[in-house]
């Protein structure tokens, strides 16, 4: 088998490439240059794609004895990930750029080019298990990345190899040290790679400019002002600068963002609870179940998992009724469905509603899907 190992310069992708070599495959290492003007040296745990990262990847390829190239995907990354990120925030959504990068860059741009150039698969250092088309969580729950891979279609996963899914991060680091890979103790990368200083609000303000607007409560009463609705995320508590307190003195949180009126809607923690989630663009990794079904759902990377009943249609629309109300569910994030540790599929969250009072005749049979009785995680009835 001829495989292309995507090598970021980190420890995970280096060990993944090493295991591909051990498997007897013909391995070629490729580092994707994603930054238009890469920094010379890595600064802290944030950021990637510095010249130093490319150098680290090259040195690992040297140790493994595989050919190594740097491919320039900066223009595509700019268009498909960074501009999408900014546009999503401008639309009042909360995007996940890592997920978008997997969908559009690693398993689309890179994979398509690899296949066209005669490779059979792309190997990455993602922490997830992939066996016979079944994508499931890594054995290391703290490092599991199945959430950001759940947007991939079966035809993309058919040419993906994740050699690290059965190992913990600790094991991966130990193996890297044993193999003499210099990145064995390189710090994990955190946050968004293209926002090197970690200041997402500052990044968005630079790209979108100041757009002053109002902060209102659910009744429409104006409580304060903001300099750009894009700077807020559902569930956010800090940075609201509201002087008037609630009658009970409870803290206020961002409930939703209305891009059309540039308004940020706030309310109490209780108001934040979501019971029903509407989604679009569903992707099925396992066979799509025939009708409504129960499963576990996760609504953000490293977020909590809860039971839900799923109804879905042929147009990619999907509704999840949660067994337990959840906070901090934001439009733009992915809803990923699991059966145990196995990914069933995913969809993009477009709207949320409270549970259960606001269901009243909300349409399309959702009411019937509400689990009866007290809020308990639904039992596994899938498939």
């Amino acid at each position, binding site marked *: 088998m001829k495989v292309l190992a995507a090598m970021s310069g980190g420890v995970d992708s280096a060990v993944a490439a090493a295991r591909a070599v051990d498997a007897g495959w013909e391995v070629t290492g490729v580092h994707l240059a994603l930054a238009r003007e890469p920094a010379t040296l890595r600064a802290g745990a944030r950021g990637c794609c510095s010249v130093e990262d*490319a150098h680290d990847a090259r040195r690992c390829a040297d140790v493994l004895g595989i050919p190594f*190239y740097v491919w320039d995907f900066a*223009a595509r990354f*700019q268009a498909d990930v960074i501009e999408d990120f900014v546009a999503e925030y401008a639309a009042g959504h909360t995007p996940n750029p890592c997920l978008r990068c997997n969908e559009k860059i690693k398993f689309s741009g890179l994979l398509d080019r690899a296949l066209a*150039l005669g490779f059979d698969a792309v190997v990455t250092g993602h922490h997830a298990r992939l066996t016979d088309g079944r994508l499931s969580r890594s054995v290391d729950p703290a490092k599991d990345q199945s959430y950001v891979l759940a947007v991939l279609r079966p035809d993309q996963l058919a040419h993906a190899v994740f050699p690290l899914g059965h190992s913990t991060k600790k094991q991966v680091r130990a193996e890297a040290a044993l193999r003499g890979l210099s990145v064995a103790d390189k710090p994990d990368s955190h946050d968004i790679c293209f926002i090197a200083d970690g200041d997402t609000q500052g990044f968005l303000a630079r790209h979108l400019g100041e757009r002053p607007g109002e902060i209102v409560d659910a009744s429409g009463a104006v409580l304060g002002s903001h300099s750009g609705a894009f700077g807020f995320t559902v569930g956010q508590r800090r940075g609201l600068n509201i002087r008037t307190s609630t009658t009970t003195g409870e803290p206020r949180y961002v409930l939703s963002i209305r891009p059309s009126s540039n308004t940020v809607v706030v309310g109490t923690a209780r108001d934040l609870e979501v019971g029903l989630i509407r989604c679009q663009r569903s992707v099925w990794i396992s066979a799509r179940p025939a009708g409504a079904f129960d499963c576990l759902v996760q609504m953000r990377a490293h977020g909590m998992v809860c039971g839900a009943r799923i109804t879905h249609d042929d147009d990619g629309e999907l509704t999840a009724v949660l067994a337990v109300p959840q906070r901090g569910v934001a439009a733009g994030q992915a809803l990923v469905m699991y059966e145990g540790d196995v990914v069933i599929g995913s969809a993009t969250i477009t709207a949320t509603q409270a549970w259960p009072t606001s269901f009243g005749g909300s349409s399309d049979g959702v009411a019937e899907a509400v689990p009866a009785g007290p809020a308990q995680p639904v039992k596994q009835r899938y498939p």
Partner: protein
Amino acid sequence: MLEEVIAAMAAAMTEVGNASSLHTSGRRARRVVEESRERLAAALGARPSEVIFTGGGTESDNLAVKGIYLARRAADPRRRRILVSAVEHHAVLDSAHWLRTHEGAAPELLPVDARGVLEVGTLAEAIETDPSSVALISVMWANNEVGTVQPVAELARVAHRYGIPLHSDAVQAVGTLPVSFAESGVDAMTVTAHKLGGPYGVGALLLKRDVACVPLLHGGGQERDVRSGTLDTPGVLGLALAAELAVSRRAETASRLTRLRDKLIEGVLRQVPDATVNGDRINRLPGNAHLSFPGCEGDSLLMLLDARGIECSTGSACSAGVAQASHVLLAMGADEDRARGSLRFSLGHTSTEADVAAVLEAIGSVTERARRAGLATPTSAPGSNTLAFGSTSMAGRL
């Protein structure tokens, strides 16, 4: 490296001695250095006192551009303009850019035609807008990417009409083109050993005796007080010997490489009819074949050829290993896609008929495959602004 050079350098490495020392070993090393200076000067049509040994082409270019600019400006503060062709090596372009940022220089990029040639009239026109403000002109002898040879002697004549010194980076030219420092009339000329079959990390700046140059490296003043640092005696010997050999074999090398190169170019055009040749078809370096392959990514071509044991280049290599769209091709009027889909095949003293045959056997299927990959994944995303990409246009930078 040439066998003879390796042997001579290996022998020199067994000798102890700092060429700056006064004792017997020092004098012996000094003699090697001075004989090397004389041999290099003789090979390049220069006087020994015009040879300043350096750490290579980049240092020589930096020294010439910065040093001559600073000296000329010190003599007359109105001299702020640096005229350089748009296709210069980054060692020249970035030196000029640095002078703009730190020393108040006003560099100007002189446009080239579609072949990459800086026409004499273009230089004359640029000078004539205000001759007294020009500190320095730098135009390479032959382009390292597309191989185009510049009319250096004519350009130097125009410069001298106004008393302006002209520097030329001749790194690519020595050993393949007839190069005489004295006959060309240029005031400063960059050469480097590793392009001649000599060692890496040693080169020279040929500098006329009457051209003032402010040093960049300060210390012992070993090289005419223009360049300090203990000389690498075996390296200097390697440079001189390699230059001597390259020049003595030049005519034969040039005709052999020209034949091979033309065979390569004609063969590629036969296999890939829509490929195009970049640079001047006649006035080009004998060992340079630079071609554009429509619809292909240079990255893909390079990888596929490399896997078949054929080594070529996309653009010019940079430290991150990313092939930036070449500023040379962009200056010649190529668009971004053509610049990204280009390859340079360099032929040298080890190249053979079999090497050319190997390229011709692979190039058809390789371009076909790379084209499919290019269609699958266009790198420049639809709607992306090509002007905002990469090194932008160098005109914007300087």
